[in-house]
């Protein structure tokens, strides 16, 4: 039957009658009251459980605060009528010893549903219920395992404080929390998840304890404005909230003003990913022409010191309206987000000359590594758009572990297995070029005809290379000498130099970029054998 279990009204009374009849014909029913075997009893109980949840007062309090219950979140988030609940009657209390078990649900409401027609599994903190300390029904673990087995995205909505049941360990059963669904909370499984399925965490209420764990392990973290997300409750926070918020530290991928906006962000995020790692990419029709674009070159000023909006370039290369930015307010000198090219989902990693001229800081490396891991784990092709003077060097950057951060980005981009294209839009120098070009790991390395590619920004390079000569010159002649030498280097740094020895594969006209990249991606997807082993990056932490 495809009828949702919660929709009791569609079930016929005829079947109720026949099931009651059949139990009457058995022998050992004497001690068991008839009504607990009836469908009426089930419906009544289900109605009570699903409407009253943790109690009418708790539900009223949630509504009075202008908030939504766990079930209302699910109804608002998933396709109408698609939710099939799992573990409706889970409870913290042992049913055998406590005939009146109190609030059902086990602190989490969850099950299966569809999102834009695609199956997903959801688990939502039920904040109408106060979870006993260190008790878990194992419901989140059960739901996560089901999602993993069925290869579908797992979505958590966090809005509470849960004390983690650390006593429960995989393989060690028989602890105090052993229940119908097993002893384990979800998080040990999430620790080993290695991005086999997409995991989304929406923080829609103050969240701490075990409820916050998924936020540190997911692929997409949305936080509702005004909520608090931390490992500990405020009363145990020794920084008194003075520590940087997860938004400021870059852990949060998107901030939502309302729950509805959070739902929309999560749905949009998932629209670019396959249902599981190695699964088919969700392709759409091409939106926008693939013909020659005679406007795009005008977006990029020829003068290297002039800033411009890289996102405008991204939007013209990608399908109309397809660009979806992640972490838009963190490390803004690098842009990360999903888009589509001829309907093919693509991860875009781009320098942003509007911010610090597109120079790269240690924070940019963090943001980029996290994004590259995400794309590579789920087989989403990568498009890198370069316009950077390089890694910003300073004493502060060195204190911020620049060496390790930069080398980690090098590692991540060297290990990519997805189809990948890099385009130098205007300039790329030294190590930054080597790294963003995937250290020769990208499939196709391109440059626009006006691009400069070399070992160092020409004016700086001229200064460093000709320092002895400069020192011997009279003060007033130095600037002209430097400018002349920088111009000489500028000629050497034209892309024909690196195209000559295949450091880049070709020079592409700006107007043809969209068509060339789309064509490459189409061909890559057509001929690449399916991946047989997970990407090494799939196991990397979401933030480091």
């Amino acid at each position, binding site marked *: 039957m495809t009828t949702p279990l919660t929709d009791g009204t569609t079930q016929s009374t005829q079947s109720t009658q026949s099931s009651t009849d059949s139990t009457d014909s058995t022998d050992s029913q004497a001690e068991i009251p008839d009504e607990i075997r009836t469908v009426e009893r089930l419906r009544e109980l289900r109605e009570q459980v699903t409407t009253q949840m943790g109690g009418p007062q708790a539900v009223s309090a949630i509504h009075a605060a202008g908030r939504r219950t766990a079930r209302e979140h699910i109804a608002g988030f998933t396709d109408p009528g698609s939710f099939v609940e799992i573990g409706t009657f889970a409870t913290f209390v042992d049913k055998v010893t406590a005939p009146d078990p109190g609030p059902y649900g086990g602190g989490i409401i969850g099950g299966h549903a569809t999102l834009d027609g695609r199956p997903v599994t959801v688990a939502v903190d039920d904040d109408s219920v106060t979870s006993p300390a260190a008790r878990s029904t194992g419901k989140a673990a059960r739901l996560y395992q089901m999602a993993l087995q069925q290869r579908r995205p797992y979505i958590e909505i966090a809005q509470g404080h849960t*004390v983690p049941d*650390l*006593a429960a*360990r995989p393989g060690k059963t028989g*602890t105090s929390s052993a229940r119908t669904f097993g002893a384990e909370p979800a998080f*040990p499984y999430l*620790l080993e998840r290695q991005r086999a399925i997409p995991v989304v965490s929406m923080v829609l209420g103050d969240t701490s304890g*075990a409820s916050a764990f998924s*936020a*540190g*392990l997911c692929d997409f973290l949305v936080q509702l404005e005004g909520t608090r*997300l*931390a*490992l500990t409750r405020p009363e*145990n926070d*020794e*920084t008194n909230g003075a*520590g*940087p*918020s*997860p938004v400021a530290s870059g*852990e949060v991928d998107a901030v939502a003003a309302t729950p509805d906006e959070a739902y929309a962000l999560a749905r949009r995020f998932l629209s670019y990913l396959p249902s599981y790692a190695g699964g088919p990419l969700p392709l759409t029709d091409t939106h926008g022409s693939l013909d020659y674009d005679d406007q795009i070159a005008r977006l990029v000023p020829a003068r290297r010191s002039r800033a411009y909006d890289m996102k405008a370039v991204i939007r013209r290369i990608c399908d109309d309206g397809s660009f979806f930015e992640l972490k838009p307010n963190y490390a803004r000198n690098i842009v990360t987000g999903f888009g589509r090219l001829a309907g093919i989902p693509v991860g875009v990693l781009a320098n942003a000359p509007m911010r610090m001229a597109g120079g790269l800081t240690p924070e940019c490396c963090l943001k980029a*590594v996290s994004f590259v891991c995400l794309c590579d784990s789920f087989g989403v092709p990568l498009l890198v758009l370069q316009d950077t003077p390089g890694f910003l*060097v300073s*004493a502060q950057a*060195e*204190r911020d*572990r620049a*060496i*390790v951060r*930069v*080398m*980690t980005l*090098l*590692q*991540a981009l*060297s*290990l990519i297995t997805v189809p990948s294209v890099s385009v130098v839009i205007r300039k790329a120098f*030294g190590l930054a*070029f*080597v790294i963003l070009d995937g*250290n*020769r790991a990208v499939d196709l390395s391109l440059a626009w005809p006006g691009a400069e*590619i*070399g*070992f160092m*920004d020409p004016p700086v390079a001229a200064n*460093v*290379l000709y*320092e002895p000569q400069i020192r011997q010159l009279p003060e007033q002649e130095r600037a002209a000498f430097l400018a002349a030498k920088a111009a000489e*280097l500028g000629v*050497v*740094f034209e892309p024909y130099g*690196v195209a000559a020895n295949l450091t880049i594969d070709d020079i592409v006209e700006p107007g043809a970029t969209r068509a060339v990249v789309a064509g490459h991606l189409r061909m890559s997807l057509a001929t690449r054998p399916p991946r047989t082993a997970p990407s*090494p990056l799939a*196991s*990397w*932490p979401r*933030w*480091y």
Partner: protein
Amino acid sequence: MNHAKPARPTFLQHVERLVDPGSYVPAVHFSEGMDLVSGTDGGEALIDGRPVTVGLSGHIVVRALHRRHPYVAISSGTGGLARGGRRNLGVLDTVWGMSGGPMLAEMASRSRDVPVVSALVHHSFGDSSFFTGLSDYVVQLKGACMALTGPRVLAIGTSEQVTMEELGGVDVHRRNGQADTIAETLDEVYAAIRGFLSYLPTHAGAPLPVTGPGAQPDQKPGRGARPLIDGLCDQGSFFELRRDFAPGLVTGLARLDGIPVGVLASDGAFAADECLKATRLICTCDAFGLPLVFLIDSPQARADQAISRAMMLAQAVQLAEVPKCWVITGQARGAGLLVTGPARIATDLVIAWPGTRAGFEDGSAGTDEHHWPADGVVAPDATRAALASHLGAVLGPSPVSRPGRTLCTWPAGF
């Protein structure tokens, strides 16, 4: 008086002082210009009787990867610009080669199959410093500077005026954790390299360098992380790593009855940097098959941006496949408790000292209660014997390093 500064040792002089006497065999190869070069930038040698490749700033590291034995970089130099920049300006075809691309490509995709060590004996910029970011162990000599680029380029490019010390001296990298050991003298540098390598197999899967039955510690396990470690491990065997970084956690290599182990002992407030410190050591130990010993007495957990980093550490602990032992020596809660999370029953051991407490936030549960999954309550005096016998039983009589399959590909640095 005008005393000339003593000349800096050459690469070969460093090698002579580092390796077993007379063991260095220079590598013979062709340079970029096709000149025959002999051993001026690297070769093979023995350290404590075991083979290594030694090279200048990452040169010929590929030989160590192929031969499957440790590589030691004597890091000193200004990177690609000085080495090849001027020469190659006419034919600017070598952005990749000049930035150390080929070496970086090898290193970036290596999976901790052989231990890689960097010794910063002089200022290191460019690919000399890049190499340190991909190394398992970095020792920095006082006076040496390690930075992406040097003060001169900084002054020209950004007008920032800083000294070598301010930019990347030992005080910078002892605090940010990018140097595992700070050495006052060259002899300390050489001793540190030999010391670090003595705990590790020559490659992942090779026999663990187990010594004879270790000397009993000369003290009882005391309060505080270091006295505790000294009281549990073989006498004088503790080799501390990143001492001045993330002081809430003490990490290092040690021996337990001759078996090399990684030790992580909480020592106060636990926050994001402590998670980074722990994760680096766990990755190294898992790749080279060293068991992990956690000593937990964590009275407080700081909340600063810790979720993802705490989960990263929890992931590292969970994904590590080497035997793991936890000893609860006091209160275990918050982040300290996190690292004691899920355990594999067959190879892992969780023991608690009498009267210790555990809980996520309040530490309310006694460790001997049902809530705490300790395998047993053990007296402080009996802890060393319990750990040693557990590890002896799990590893067997002639232990081979059984490398983990996942963490070896995690980032090289944290």
